[in-house]
């Protein structure tokens, strides 16, 4: 499954970078993620609950921040396991400052699924990805407004 998204957020690149690097905030804005715990430098333990079309499940695994170039880019690697299948995602995140109070946040990447998730969810995956992307940016905006 291809993952792409672009959105302009009303905050500075540094501010957005800091939020993305704060586990509690990242957990709050990322749809489905219910908990992120820092295990080591750049490695989080992640718990997610996701419902995709006909299948739903609780995922446990790791999220890793690799090659961080503050406040410009990083690669987010996610390895999640669940009873309904596993997800391995590789997402390249980019922050581009438009001005001091506006930043374009974009990402592109790929998620490979296996197990029941791949077998029965695939049909609706791209739709789900779009919905989750929209939700992510909306949550981010809400979080910015709240701060």
């Amino acid at each position, binding site marked *: 499954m291809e993952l792409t998204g672009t959105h302009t957020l009303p905050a500075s690149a540094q501010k957005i970078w800091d939020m993305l690097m704060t586990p509690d905030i990242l957990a709050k804005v990322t749809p489905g993620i219910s908990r992120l715990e820092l295990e080591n430098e750049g490695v989080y333990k992640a718990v997610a609950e996701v419902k995709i079309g*006909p299948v739903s499940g609780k995922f446990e695994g790791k999220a890793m921040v690799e090659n961080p170039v503050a406040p410009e880019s990083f690669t987010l690697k996610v390895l999640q396991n669940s009873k309904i299948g596993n997800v*391995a995602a590789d997402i390249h995140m980019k922050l581009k400052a438009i001005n001091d109070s506006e930043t374009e946040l974009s990402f592109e990447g790929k998620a490979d699924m*296996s*197990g029941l998730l*791949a*077998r*029965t969810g*695939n*049909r609706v995956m791209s739709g789900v990805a779009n919905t989750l992307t929209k939700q992510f940016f909306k949550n981010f905006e809400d979080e910015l407004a709240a701060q």
Partner: protein
Amino acid sequence: MSNKFIGKSVKRVEDKRFITGRGRYTDDIVLPGMTYAYILRSPYAHARIKSIDTSAAEAMEGVVTIMTGEEVGHYGVPCGWQVNFKNGDTMKEPPHPLLVKDKVRHVGDAVAMVVAESRELAQDAAEAIMIDYEVLPAVIDASKAVEEGAPLVHDDVPNNICFDWEIGNPKEEVDAALASASHITTLEFVNQRLAPNAMEPRSYIGQYDNVYDKYTLYTSTQNPHLIRLLMCAFVLGLPEHKVRVVGPDVGGGFGSKIYHYTEEALVTLASKKIGRPVKWTETRSEAFLTDAHGRDHVTKAEMGFDADGKIVGLRIKTFANLGAYLSTFSTAVPTYLHGTLLQGLYTTPKIHLDMTCVFTNTTAVDAYRGAGRPEATYLLERLLDLSALEMGVDPTELRLKNFIPAFDGVTQPGYQTNVALQYDSGNYHGVLQRGLEMLGYEDFRKAQAEAAKTNKLLGVGFSTYIEACGIAPSAVVGSLGARAGLYEVGQVRVQPTGKVSVFTGAHSHGQGHETTFAQVVADRLGIPMEDVDIIHGDSDTVAFGMGTYGSRSLAVGGSAIVKSLDKIIEKGAKIAAHKLECSVDDIEFIDGKFNVKGTDKSLGFGDIALTAYVPHVYPANLEPGLDFSSFYDPTNFTYPFGCHIAVVEVDKETGTTKIKRFIAVDDVGNVINPMIVDGQIHGGLAQGIGQALFEGVEYDENGQIINASYMDYTMPRADDFPMFELDRQVTPCPHNPLGVKGAGEAGCIGSTPAVTNAVIDALWSAGHKVKDIRMPLTSERVWRAMQS
């Protein structure tokens, strides 16, 4: 002999239990102390297993035992047919372990089996097994798997090639014939992968009795004796006389239940280990991943014609996808069941097939209704209709011009093909002409021309097919690499009161043997059908058998029963002659009575039966009893054939195809029960048309099946079809006593190309000169074809 039942549409005697819910399938069987197995399967298509930790699972509630590859990985299931490389080397035959310990090779590969007090507890515990996988790149497409640098499914099989193979005339001769052709039609296409989808999922129970040291395996199979032979001699090394295999009522097979599956051996081993019965029943989702799939050929075919429209040569290159492991008959399907049918109904003088059989990270592929013959038929019949379009000639005239002339196989010899087989008897012009009459061909073409001006295009597609059933004789199939004989066993036991128990090695999983076979027996013995019981499926009651597949039951299994009936009647005549004090030559057996010719003296079948078991007045030197068993090994395959015609309407705006009419004129030799044959044709047509329009297993590039459920895999439904228009021609089989050819697969073999041809014809009628659309012909694909 009497003539009360044969040829009549007798209602099926087995249906009482099926339609009242009293059928007894393996999963219905509950044994005292039974445990339940769940198999943990790989979520990856290709991955190395770095570690397996079962400790948490073992401690869970209700868990009886957990088995892994460490314990049973040295046992594996065999392939039943050896095919050699072109250079004579033996095919690559990598092991197919019961449970994998080193690396998994397809999604669904079995890694561990948990046995627990309930299915749910077993599944819960399986989820607690920790497996550390190192995911490897996977290869899915057979034509790509042979490329340098492709991932290796088995580390010791170079280029993933199981074997390469060829059949037909020398390739140079075919090349020369094509070089001389005035027109060559080239078609590159995929015969897609299908999931068999039997209504009853696979289910097995292993039961070990330590008092008698005896194993019983209840299995949803098409051939219990073969499973016993394979499991005892080639997998577990168990003494055959201590193993009973029972195939009770079985809810459909379509080939997928021929094979010896790993789970059959696993439940057997586990029941011995724990001393309790072990049941395993797959989920529908598992069925998509583990029941052997069908088809999956990637082909380039070229057919050459001379200026008069006569076929001069046929050259084919095909890659057949065998999946990750060799299933029991997987190697025979693309070769001896496919390459040998490429003569079709045509006099094609030069034919060459170059076949490469390949391992990939996918579910094993084996026989599926038709097995090889649908692939051959699709190839030929697509080429015929497409050639007609390309050359601007009529597809039916092109066929009539190239058909093999009629021959009865009795006064005229059989037809020797260029691809090894010798056809038994045929009248190919007859079925096409009858089909055209039913269609009203001239009127159709007028209607089509009118429709071409509208948004609802009309198309007609033809398929004149031949198939080979009742694969035999044993000596021939043995010389071709079969690791089994292909005869059948039939035992007729006349009880003292004249009632008859028939034991057959054929196995019914929907075919209606209990009716058809009883019709034959009742007529041959001149007794009521109620006096005949057909018993099958239990290795302890039936002497031996090869089971049911390849439309062989009546042609081979029925003939074995007839051989025993002949022995019964012959012995009965001796007993009658003695009692009636005449010569045995003066006895005639008519309508269940042994008569002295030209007199009114006679004895009934029941009297003779009783005398045989109470032999007070009895011929000297004749054994008492009336019970005979026979092995029948046919002298040849049988060759049913027919003409299928599809009329479709294609919506120009949406690409949606609707079957308007479907005509099938089949010649399956003599017919015992027309209703059952019609039912077989109907079911076959639904599956064959299903392949053309609806079905197909789809993998993503990582080897995940992305439509492994009924939400995503489209099965044909009754309302997708019009009422089929059936007719029959009868050209008896000259070499078996019933003159029957077999009808189980015909519908599925003939129908698929007729539908694709019809859609292509509809598109050409509106000027879209499309050569091929990949099956299934979804609305999207047809629409895109019209836009290109």
